């Protein structure tokens, strides 16, 4: 990169230099704008429906009686399932599943009705392809409900024929009922889980990368010495001037993100916008602090970028967006707390999804501050390397 000819020194000059660098290179545009904006659009439109509906499935009716046809009709009428095939045998259905045509199938055995009426207890079995978790879970629910309804109908018929009156039967079928109330997300919208965790996590990745990249570039091309001269030898001034314009850009982006997720996409916001925005605004310098710390430890463009990329990508799993920390091995779970996104996620749950008092999430805000202060412990090291940059290819 060519030196930018700005004669004067000082904070403002450094900021201007930093901005000019961003404007000049398309790689910065990609990192700052194109990826984040694409991701907003991508995730929210992809998961717009919340849950997949009409999951392709099949029914194997080996009985072929009025009863089995009734079950087929009931199943076909369910909202979640699309009965695409009616294969003749188990193997045929399994082949369809292996080919990916269906996500599960429902099997009514031979002599089903006859066995049932004779009390020989035929077994209804349904198969779901759990390698595709979400659609298979939908199918599981639908299949189970169909089977339970079928069972209830049959038990009622049998009991009625034995002389039990219909009225006391209906309450007898399900004497105990436990109604599940999903709080905060009654439609079980899957999109809010993916979008609200993956979008900030992607931002964390990009903030990590851009921070490490922009400082590493100075070290790689030896321009850091000039930067230090402009800052009159103060590492604090140099880095503040370098990173502050980036912070402002990220602030604009997280503001847009918050509006996009909670206003435009109508993801649940049961708490206060203020705390949520504060969280997002603190999240940016926390991520920058984390990346800066990595750069301080490894003052080399390639190594620090590798580490940032590694941690940034691992965050998608280790921050426990889908698999809870207490269920992980403790030795792995502990690492979920070393990334800023974990705290962003926890605050989002407390403030946006559950809308509880901010006092419950105060510790997560403190964690942000710790991330911001982290690099100060090693700035002296970076100062040494900024003054004597060595590039190891």
């Amino acid at each position, binding site marked *: 990169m060519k030196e930018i000819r700005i004669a004067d020194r000082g904070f403002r000059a450094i900021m201007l230099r930093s901005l000019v660098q961003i404007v000049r290179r398309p790689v910065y545009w990609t990192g700052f704008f194109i990826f984040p904006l694409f991701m907003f659009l991508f995730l929210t439109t992809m998961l717009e429906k919340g849950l*997949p509906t009409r999951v392709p499935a099949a029914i194997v009716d080996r009985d072929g009686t009025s009863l089995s046809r009734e079950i087929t009709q009931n199943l076909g009428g369910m909202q979640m399932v699309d009965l695409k095939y009616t294969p003749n045998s188990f193997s045929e259905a399994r082949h369809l599943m292996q080919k990916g045509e269906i996500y599960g199938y429902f099997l009514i055995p031979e002599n089903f009705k006859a066995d049932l009426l004779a009390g020989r207890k035929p*077994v*209804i079995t349904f198969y779901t392809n759990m390698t595709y978790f979400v659609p298979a879970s939908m199918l599981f629910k639908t299949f189970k409900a169909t089977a339970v309804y079928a069972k209830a109908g049959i038990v009622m018929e049998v009991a009625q024929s034995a002389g039990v009156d219909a009225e006391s039967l209906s309450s007898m079928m399900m004497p*105990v009922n436990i109604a599940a*109330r999903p709080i905060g997300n009654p439609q079980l919208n899957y999109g809010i889980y993916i979008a609200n965790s993956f979008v900030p996590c992607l931002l964390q990745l990009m903030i990590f990368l851009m921070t490490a990249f922009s400082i590493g570039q100075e070290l790689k091309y030896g321009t850091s010495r000039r930067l230090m001269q402009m800052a009159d030898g103060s590492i604090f001034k140099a880095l503040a001037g370098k990173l502050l314009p980036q912070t402002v850009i990220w602030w604009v982006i997280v503001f847009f993100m918050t509006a996009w997720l909670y206003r435009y996409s109508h993801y649940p916001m049961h708490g206060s916008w203020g705390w949520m925005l504060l969280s997002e605004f603190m999240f940016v310098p926390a991520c920058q602090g984390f990346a800066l710390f990595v750069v301080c430890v490894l003052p080399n463009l390639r190594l620090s970028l590798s580490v940032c990329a590694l941690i940034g*990508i691992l965050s998608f799993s280790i921050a426990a967006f889908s*698999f809870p920390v207490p269920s992980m*091995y403790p030795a792995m779970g502990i690492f979920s707390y070393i990334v800023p996104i974990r705290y962003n996620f926890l605050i989002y749950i407390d403030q946006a999804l559950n809308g509880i008092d901010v006092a419950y999430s105060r510790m997560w805000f403190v964690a942000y501050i710790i991330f911001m202060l982290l690099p100060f412990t090693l700035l002296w090291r970076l100062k040494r390397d900024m003054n004597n940059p060595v590039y190891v290819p």
Partner: protein
Amino acid sequence: MFAVYCREFKMVTHDVGIILFFMFLPLAYPIIYSLIYNPELVKDVSMVVVDHDRTALSRELVRKMDACDQAHVIGYATDLGDARRAIDSHKAYAILEIPEGFARKVGRNEASNAVMYCEMSLLLRYRGFLVASTNVMQEFSSELMTENIDRIAPLAETIATGDLLPVHNVSMGNIRNGFDSFIMPGVLILILQQCIVLAVGMAGGAQRESMRLTGYCSDNLAPSVFLTMVAQMLCYLTILVIPIIFMLHYVPLIFRFPMAGDALEIFAFILPMIFASFGLGFAFQSVVTERETVFVLWVATSLVFLLLSGLIWPMYDMLPVWRWLAGICPSTWGVEGFVKMNANGASLSQVSGPYLNLWILAVVWWVLGYCSRRWVVRPALMKLSSR
């Protein structure tokens, strides 16, 4: 071509960055990821109980709930507010509220309702609670129902001796319903693709960079663009053979992922995906002007590829534009075929659709890769060397 192969081999083995991609990424990443999710199931999630009934029946309900694999009752709360505080302070994730008169209603042959409030921060927890409560509900109900019917009309032995119509469910492919076995086989394929694209991209960046810094150009020796590409790919494949076998065969073995497929067929299937990834990598070289930019430009795409693969969100339910985008990613078809073969035991002929698509993609990406090398990378290198 052999000369290029040797030269490239020497260059790669001396480049720590590329070696890192070839060794660390395919060897360490699958292990780290698998370890994160390896417990597979979410068990014993804490819940609190608000019991307004305080009868033997309500206590039995709570005991049954606690006995479930998925739930763990940490204690009783006096009222809903108290229970709510336990949720807010992240001690419990669900409240089971049993209303007053719960047992009395059952005794009067009326339907008795309990309510379970679930905190929805993670879907897996909710799913666990739902499964637990459904199982408890059914078990409880069939016990009570048998008792009741027997009392009213002591006749039907068929009913009295238990379940009239047993319902079984079988989870195919991922028999434990585990999270690791669900996500990891797909992620392995993604890691493979990303590892290839990143390494090829970085090699391209390194070449341009070394031109700029030292004036050394390796491409001048090359007889043709295409042969150089082939030689480079063969060279990288030599290094990658062991990592690929490790990833696709030994990682599932170590972590006990489903392995229903035929190993040779799986490798035959994955071959065109590897070719296509190289083609994609060569095409990617056109925008990589310096080695480190690959991180900024490519790392974040992993997420896009994961979501497009159809593993998390089914492909048939995507917007046409995303389905189209998914169609041109080698990983989409790679994941689809690999998961079907590995977990569902499909044969190569059963995944012929994805297989054919992968070969088409391999050709398409190689053509694009050739174009990028011929008309973008090479002129750029020429310009640099003439400077």
